[in-house]
């Protein structure tokens, strides 16, 4: 046995990247289960496809870069990227959507920038943006929550829909949306709560009128509120395990909540309130799982506060005044671009040294 000499701190947990990523995956499970419960088998199918694609492209890249593929494949970072992207896209999107997205994330955003720990941008969100601007139709056809449809599309029908974009009876996701608006019960596809509010507001309805829709009851839209609460639960688990620090989630949620409250004060019937901003869309997923990516986030604690508050600000601005109903991916990418300058101005002072002057 060799005597291990190290500088302080001496009590510490030596956790590998693979272990941390495993914890992140464990923390994702409640959210995934909630999504599966409310949105059906599509979620699980997307996950399987995403993970398969991630491993395939990852080993391809590692082979091309002449790296030992086994140890790198075991660090689970590709797995987390794939899972985050898979839970972000509509559950019944055609199979090639997720394959293109994950392949772009892994090959271009991760490996062309130098692999694990080198990427400037959050790979999952960059992949999401590619999909969003490339396939606007597929990326906006969300599934109606089970509370409205009564029952899920069966596993077989989900697979059929993902492979051929039609159910075995010949309906496409879009056609089912038509059926849905007629009867309100056969619905498979429909707008997300944020999309719904956005459309109504642009048509001159007030917020309270928009919230009368059957999609809303309780906090922030059927299904979505529980999915967000499940991700909040997973996020708290990550905090408790000290995989992430409190700075990013707290600053992101605080800045979003503050702005939403301000918006409600100024224009109570035109701008959605705090409850909708916090518990609808991908807010909790973003706060605890996406913005906290240790590679593309700011590095110092103070920097992380600024970084996350910036994400909250951009999310609020795009959701309220921009061209898209939800804005997590754009906000995260834009904040990623600001990280170098945030890091420059928030570098902590070394203990015992005078405060540095900023150049």
């Amino acid at each position: 046995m060799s005597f291990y000499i190290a500088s302080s701190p001496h009590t510490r947990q030596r956790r590998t990247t693979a272990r941390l990523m495993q914890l992140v995956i464990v923390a994702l499970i409640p959210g995934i289960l909630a999504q599966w419960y409310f949105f059906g088998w599509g979620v699980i199918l997307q996950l399987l496809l995403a993970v398969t694609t991630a491993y395939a492209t990852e080993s391809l890249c590692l082979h091309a870069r002449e790296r030992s593929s086994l140890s790198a494949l075991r660090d689970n970072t590709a797995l987390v990227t794939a899972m985050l992207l898979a839970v972000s896209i509509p559950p019944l999107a055609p199979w090639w959507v997720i394959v293109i997205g994950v392949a772009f994330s892994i090959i271009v955003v991760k490996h062309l920038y130098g692999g694990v720990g080198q990427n400037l941008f959050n790979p999952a969100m960059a992949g999401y943006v590619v999909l969003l601007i490339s396939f606007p139709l597929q990326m906006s056809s969300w599934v109606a929550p089970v509370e409205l449809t009564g029952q899920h599309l069966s596993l077989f029908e989900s697979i059929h829909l993902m492979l051929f974009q039609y159910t075995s009876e010949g309906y496409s996701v879009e056609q089912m949306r038509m059926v849905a608006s007629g009867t309100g019960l056969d619905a498979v596809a429909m707008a997300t709560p944020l999309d719904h509010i956005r459309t109504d507001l642009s048509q001159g309805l007030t917020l309270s009128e928009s919230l009368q829709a059957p999609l809303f009851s309780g906090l922030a839209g059927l299904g979505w509120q529980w999915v967000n609460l499940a991700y909040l639960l997973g996020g708290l688990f990550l905090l408790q395990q000290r995989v992430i620090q409190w700075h990013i989630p707290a600053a992101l949620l605080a800045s979003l909540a503050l702005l939403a409250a301000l918006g409600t004060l100024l224009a109570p019937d035109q701008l959605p309130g705090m409850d909708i901003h916090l518990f609808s869309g991908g807010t909790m997923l973003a706060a605890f799982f996406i913005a906290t990516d240790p590679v593309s986030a700011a590095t110092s604690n103070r920097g992380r506060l600024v970084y996350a508050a910036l994400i909250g600000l951009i999310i609020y601005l795009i959701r309220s005044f921009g061209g898209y109903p939800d804005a997590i991916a754009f906000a995260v990418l834009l904040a990623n671009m600001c990280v170098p300058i945030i890091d420059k101005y928030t570098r902590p002072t070394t203990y015992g040294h005078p405060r540095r002057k900023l150049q």
Partner: protein
Amino acid sequence: MSESIADTDVADEASAETTNGRFDEVRTLTQNGLWSNNPALVQLLGLCPLLAVSGTVTNALGLGIATMLVLIGSNVTVSLVRNFVPSEIRIPVFVMVIATFVTLIELFMNAFTYGLFMALGIFIPLIVTNCAIIGRAEAYASKNNWQLSAIDGFMMGLGFTLVLVLLGAMREIIGQGTLFDGAELLLGDWATVLRIELFAVDYPLLLAVLPPGAFIGMGFIIAGKNWIDHKREQRNQTDSVKKVERARVTSA
């Protein structure tokens, strides 16, 4: 030797040496324009039109040819007047010359390729601001005779056009699955037969069609060029290393 030739204005000294020197110079110009000093890949000049109109091969080819013609014309003119232009005001004069040729090209395109003229829109007059053109006028044409300047303009324009067409082809294939879509706009009605449909896409990959696709594609092309250069350098190095080893063995 090539530099001394480049500096002489007298074209009819037809000794064996000068023809050799002239040939070398042309070869250097070709190599520079097409590869080692390519305006788009190495100098990164003229990226605005390059990225904006490379959505299809037709657009790319149209703009590439227009740029090439302007470049040849401006290079020749600048070279001819270079001894009469005071160096203090040479840049405005060059810009005037370039603007003249751009206006000519614009009128020609309006007259003969109206569809393409409409498709390219503002990017035809914007050729004036293409730094590759003023850059060549300043760096080469204002120091060399008009024949060499014309060749330089042609080669630089060709290098620019080739990159533009390559990028256009990449974006068109990935985005729409076709090649030479709308070639009739540039070449006349017979050219509709040139349209190749490689595969049918129900949902085009809009990323390739939109500007971000141009940036990403451009990045890939530059990376590809650097990769080829890198491989070449490695091969040359291993060759020279081998030679040295052999020399040592024989001397020992």
